[in-house]
């Protein structure tokens, strides 16, 4: 039946979109690790993969958007849903531009910051890793969304604390860095931190969407 074909195609696209975002986040995490380990070739390869996946996510999102409007589907939820997908897609955009800047600007992170930086990346990745399943479950079981996004908020807070900790170390503890270098490193910390901030914004949108559906 034509009606359910559209619905099946959209479900497939949506799954593909979420898979792509999850993949981007995982590869980006490996890329940061590669950068800190000095494996620049691997880092470059992973960057290319992230760029490619980010394009793919953009493409799928636009397709979903067009299909929803062309077939006038979900008239009441469409606006919120597209806003959510755009925010989720922003995560891939932030990661792509962040990693590209790593490659172009080559920030020099002192050895003592590596573990903290890895932990910050880990927290950010975890926030996204909990966001995507919550987004997936929203379509079938909006009641479960609340408990799932609780973890997104948790990891966002953790990453905020971690970022603050790193900034404190950069400016107060590490002495063999120029002020310009310190400001440069802070820029990258903010860039990584913004991943979990964006995940939090998406979780807020999702939370309201789930309330609307259960009314």
């Amino acid at each position, binding site marked *: 039946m034509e009606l359910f074909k559209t619905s099946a195609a959209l479900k497939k696209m949506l799954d593909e979109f979420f898979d792509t975002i999850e993949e981007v986040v995982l590869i980006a995490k490996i890329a940061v690790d590669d950068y800190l380990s000095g494996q620049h070739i691997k880092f470059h390869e992973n960057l290319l993969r992230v760029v490619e996946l980010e394009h793919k996510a953009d493409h799928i999102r636009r397709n979903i958007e067009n299909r929803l409007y062309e077939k006038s589907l*979900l*008239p009441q939820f469409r606006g919120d849903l597209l806003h959510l997908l755009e925010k989720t897609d922003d995560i891939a955009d932030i990661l792509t531009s962040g990693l590209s800047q790593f490659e172009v600007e080559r920030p020099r992170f002192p050895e003592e910051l590596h573990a903290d930086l890895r932990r910050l990346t880990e927290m950010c990745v975890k926030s996204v890793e909990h966001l995507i399943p919550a987004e997936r479950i929203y379509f*079938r079981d909006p009641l479960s969304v609340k408990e799932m996004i609780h973890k997104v908020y948790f990891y966002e807070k953790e990453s905020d604390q971690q970022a603050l900790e790193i900034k404190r170390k950069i400016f107060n503890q590490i002495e063999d860095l120029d002020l310009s270098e310190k400001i440069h490193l802070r820029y990258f910390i903010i860039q990584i931190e913004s991943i979990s901030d964006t995940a939090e914004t998406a979780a807020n949108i999702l939370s309201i969407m789930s309330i*609307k559906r259960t009314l």
Partner: protein
Amino acid sequence: MLLLFYLSSGLFLGWALGANDASNIFGSAVGTKMLRFKTAAIVGSIFVILGAVIQGAGASHTLGKLGTINAMGGAFTVALAAGVTVFWMTKLKYPVSTSQAIVGAIIGWNFYAGRSTDFHSLYPIVITWISGPILGAIFSALLYIGMRKLILTLRVHLFDLDQIIRILLLVVGAFGAYSLGANNIANVVGVFLPLAPETPLDFYIFSLNGSQQLFLLGGISIAIGIFTYSKRVMETVGNDIVALSSESALVVVLAQSLVLFIFSNQALSDAVQSVGLPAIPMVPVSSSQVIVGAIIGIGLVRGVHSIQFGIIGGIASGWVVTPIMAGLLSFVSLFFVGNVFKIEVVKPQNQPTSTIVTEIDSVKIEKEKSDTVRFLSDSTERLIQR
């Protein structure tokens, strides 16, 4: 031809009913863009006509008993007064009740003619003005709770749910349109039933008796009302009292259709009676009132705070104003038509054939007599020839 002229006011009322009441069935679906207006109008029109022709007799019978309007001019004026009231209230964007308008207009005729109103017929009608919205609220609250539970338990994907609800809105809308035709056709042509043609209309596969021919005409006028004027009302209805989701819209239409169906289904009434319960009165119920009740029902489930009581007050005041306004308009119009245009709106009570029904009966008897005479004379002639 004269019959068609007199019937035109009834058809105008039918048009006004289509313009106003179709929005009760498809308003939420079209307003939320779940259905296209064109689809809603086509399905609505077909099923309104089917409901009117197949099941329109029950409620019409009760309305006929309320006041036997015994002159064509009277029936014309009464239907016109009701039609103008409905049109006016629709213009003011009030969900007006056609049933209330016609009942008010008939009572206006009773007053003008100096006849007493049959309170045995009026009583169940007025009771449904209260019980209709209450039943609508109960049905919609129960259906809403049930549907919400079902959706959450079955965990249907939002995209699939959207598609299912679209189909259901169309199916339930068709049922709603059928029930509207069956129940509300009485308002449109009920007062003209004594004037129904005697000759059945043969369509080869089926035939329509006199009343059904009137119901068909009334149904068509409702359909024209749906196509020409309901779009504007449909696009604004639904979200005023409580913001409706597509699931709620479905529940509201289903609750409304069930209430209308109950009050126009003779078989159901008989079944209820057979188990020792009181019979369900076959009366024209206001779909506008029922739908307001149904929306309030959902609002109560969601929480009283979600209901806009100010808007409900405005709508309820419309329910009080409608019958009074239609009654006054009917009374004044009858005076004008009778005294200025010199058209007979009431046959004198002392006239031996005081109603058109008996007038038609006498015409029938005369015709039968002349047929018998003709048959006898023909037979005699044939016998003579032999």
